[in-house]
């Protein structure tokens, strides 16, 4: 169903993506000093520096540089990594799927568990499950995910040895889905914890708010069983406010993937970014950040569309 809201929302993505490219370009162009020297090191010959400057288009004005960069980008040319000696797009292509897989699983996990616990906490407000959940949420939002990852490795990977902490095979042709799944349990949990805690809090508040609305009283006045009142009448309305936050949580999860991939040696873009930053592989950083930002924009687009499908008032607006 392609209605006018979705169409408008799709059009709106063009300026956002444009803005994203501008910012990525500007941040990297504002590197103090000469990026060419930074790439080649202090002892580079002037000729080599000039060559790199030309390769990077640094001898043009800033808007022209941006134009050239954008045109290349649209053709799939993200430049070459001077450290890895291969096109940036190739390196990113190899690492995009693992990152999206890990972040996607963590997002789904945190959403499902977070919303369920939030509903339980709201429906059984002030009971002991509510209190346990509230404390868990406080600990969850206060825990650094990278530390949680280390603890999970220590307990479940080393002490109890229930799950592997490294040595994942290629998904296709290697160990298959099961091998990947076993390696993903711990990182996905570590990544999902914080986002999940935020969603528990949000869901609990939204449910308590919605349960006070007049239409919930109407649903009860109709004699509907409480289960239906909670899930069909209250929860659906609470979900309208929760979905955009899930979109924002995607940002947490994609960003947090940088830590988790580093801790768990996950072959994704996050870990690539960290090493690219220490080797000052500017173009690789630029490409990686851009790709993740685009993924984030798309997830938020999907969240907005899902919200509009749920709420007819948004479709009409």
């Amino acid at each position, binding site marked *: 169903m392609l209605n006018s809201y979705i169409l408008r929302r799709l059009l709106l993505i063009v300026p*956002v993506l444009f*803005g*994203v490219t501008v*910012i990525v370009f500007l*941040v990297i162009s504002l*590197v*103090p000093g000469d990026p060419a020297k930074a790439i080649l090191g202090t002892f580079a010959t002037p000729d080599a520096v000039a060559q790199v400057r030309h390769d990077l288009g640094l001898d043009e004005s800033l808007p022209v540089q941006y134009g050239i960069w954008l045109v290349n980008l649209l053709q799939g040319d993200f430049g070459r990594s001077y450290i890895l000696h291969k096109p940036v797009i190739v390196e990113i292509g190899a690492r995009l799927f693992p990152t999206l897989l890990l972040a996607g699983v963590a997002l789904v996990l945190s959403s499902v568990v977070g919303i369920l616990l939030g509903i339980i906490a709201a429906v059984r*407000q002030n009971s002991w499950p509510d209190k346990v959940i509230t404390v868990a949420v*406080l600990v969850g*939002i*206060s*825990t*650094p995910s*990278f*530390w949680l990852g*280390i*603890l999970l*490795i*220590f307990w479940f990977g*080393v002490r109890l040895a229930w799950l592997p902490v490294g040595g994942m095979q290629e998904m296709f042709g290697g160990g298959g889905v099961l091998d990947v799944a076993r390696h993903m349990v711990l990182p996905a949990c570590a990544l999902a914890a914080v986002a999940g805690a935020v969603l528990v809090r949000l869901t609990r508040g939204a*449910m308590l708010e919605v349960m*006070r*609305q*007049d*239409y*919930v*009283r*109407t*649903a*009860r*006045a*109709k*004699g*509907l069983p409480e289960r239906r*009142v909670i899930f069909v*009448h209250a929860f659906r*309305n609470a979900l309208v406010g929760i979905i955009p936050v899930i979109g924002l949580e*995607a*940002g947490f999860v*994609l*960003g947090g993937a*940088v*830590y988790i991939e580093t*801790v768990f040696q996950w072959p994704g873009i996050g870990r690539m*970014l*960290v090493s*690219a*930053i*220490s080797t000052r592989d*500017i173009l690789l*950083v630029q490409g990686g*950040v851009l790709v*993740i*930002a685009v993924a*984030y*924009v798309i997830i938020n687009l999907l969240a907005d569309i899902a919200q509009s499908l749920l*709420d*007819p*008032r948004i479709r*009409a607006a």
Partner: protein
Amino acid sequence: MSGRPSAWRLLTQNGVVAFGLALLGVMVLIVLLAPVLPLLDPNVTDVAHRLKPPLYPGHWLGTDQVGRDILSRLIWGTRLSLVVGLTAALVAAAIGSAIGLSSAFYGGLADTLLMRGIDMLMAFPYLLLALAIVAALGPGLFNAMMAIIVVNIPFFARGVRGGTLSVVNADFMAAARLSGLSDWQIIATELFPNVLPGIVIGVSTTVGWMILETAGLSFLGLGAQPPQADLGGMLGEGRNLIQVAPHVATIPGIVILLLAVGINLVGDGLRDVLDPKLKSGGLARTHARTAAASSEARRAGLQPAGDAARQPLAVRGLHTQFTVGRNVYKAVGGVSFTVKPGEAVGLVGESGSGKTVTALSIAGLVATPPGKITRGEILHHGEDLVDVPMQRLQAVRGGTIAYVFQDPLTTLNPLIPVGEQVAETIRRHQNLPRAEAWRKAVALLESVRLPDAANRARSYPHEFSGGQRQRIGIAMALANNPEVIVADEPTTALDVTTQAQVLALLNDLRRERNAALVFISHDVGVIAELCDTVHVMYGGKVVESGPVAAVLQTPAHPYTQRLLACVPVLGNPERKIEPIPGLPPATNALPEGCAFAPRCHLAEARCSAAEIELAPVSADHFARCVRVAA
């Protein structure tokens, strides 16, 4: 009581927040004292004593991979993390607030440009943006802090802009402009104080994040550079030692956790104090039915039901109250009335008289908390609805007793097509297949004269007019041919011509189906037209009741008399309309005796001396007034 307690007292009263404050206080105290505490040098290595466990002599928390004292490094590291986190939060707040304030204050193109820029920044997962900035500036604690500041500016700019917009158009702002203050003076004296609480809340809720974020960058080796270490850096160094010396990574993690817990607790507490609207624990869940005292307590002193037990509805001695903090609001204080088959009973009174709470009490729909039925019973053919099993109550609700509520916009579920909302009631009580229930729902919508019902049944509540929505509400109430319809001011939210149509419709349909009606209204004229019997309510009690003609033509209670005097009569413009002086009583401080006495022009000393009983004016006409009782 001398007004509001101080913010500090409010903060420390809450045990959880006090715990957070104490936790944070101790940590801050320790790091402040770091220079004078007898600590070892955090950077002195001692490879001979490397990776010693906690409680090792001379090193309470053990040593790290090069033999440095972990306790000392921990305290100095915490100090660094706190300083960096706090600085980042304050700087981001200052810059973001400046942008937000000026953007909202000057508006126009500047506002549009600034906000589009902010939108672009927010299109990034912010850790990634921070990484890009660190990549550009190069690793290092200062650069990491700059990156964290930049990515948090949009949050403050957005929030402060929103807060400013809500005051920038207020009346006092216009007054300030007219009085000739300069822009800067207005911003400093009028705007800033209004948005400051929002900024404080913003800082208190983001400091924790900022500490976690800078720790994260240091953990990745992009923040603090060795040998200097903040908490994140220590964690990063301990990461690879997790198998041989787990304490090296565990201890700094625990400290980050405690720090963040303390900050989050205090932040939540601050938010509750500064912005009570957002108070997290302020909302209580409403229960499936109204709470009630034990049946013995409720029935104490009630006369035997007699004939009332055979009627479709008999409210007997009903007391419903709300407890909010230390205040008890006795919204309904002993209401009794009976509804015979097919009879139309009106409850009339000003707002706050307890008529709506009486209506909602019938099917246990008064919100609990804070509502509770403390005395009395609600008989439905002799069955006390206050304590029938939940399943039985649910069979009655929408089955034999149905409701039409006041505001049809808020009482219909905005996300469900109206036909489905009607069909749902039918399926619940008649056990019909979906298609059959849908056909019946459409037929009902036709019977309430909803145009093009077959198609419009698939529309949502917001797509109808107020009058149409209330027709849908009526269709929903009629769905299972109830014996009693409780209509709570069903037309108050509608305009006058629509009111008349909707009322006529409700009355015709309920007569066709021989349903009794409990009609709640503040409008005496409507009651006169619709009802057989009327009960006039004041201060939670029935003050006069009887056949509509008798009560309205020969009112016995001064309140009824004054109420009728307020009603304009069509075609009689000479008639003087006399508003009742004073206000209805607050139900948490009801006067002794007659609640109307303070406003009554006929009041005497005995009115306020003792409880006054309903006394007969004639065979079926009663009033609660000393002048009648005499």
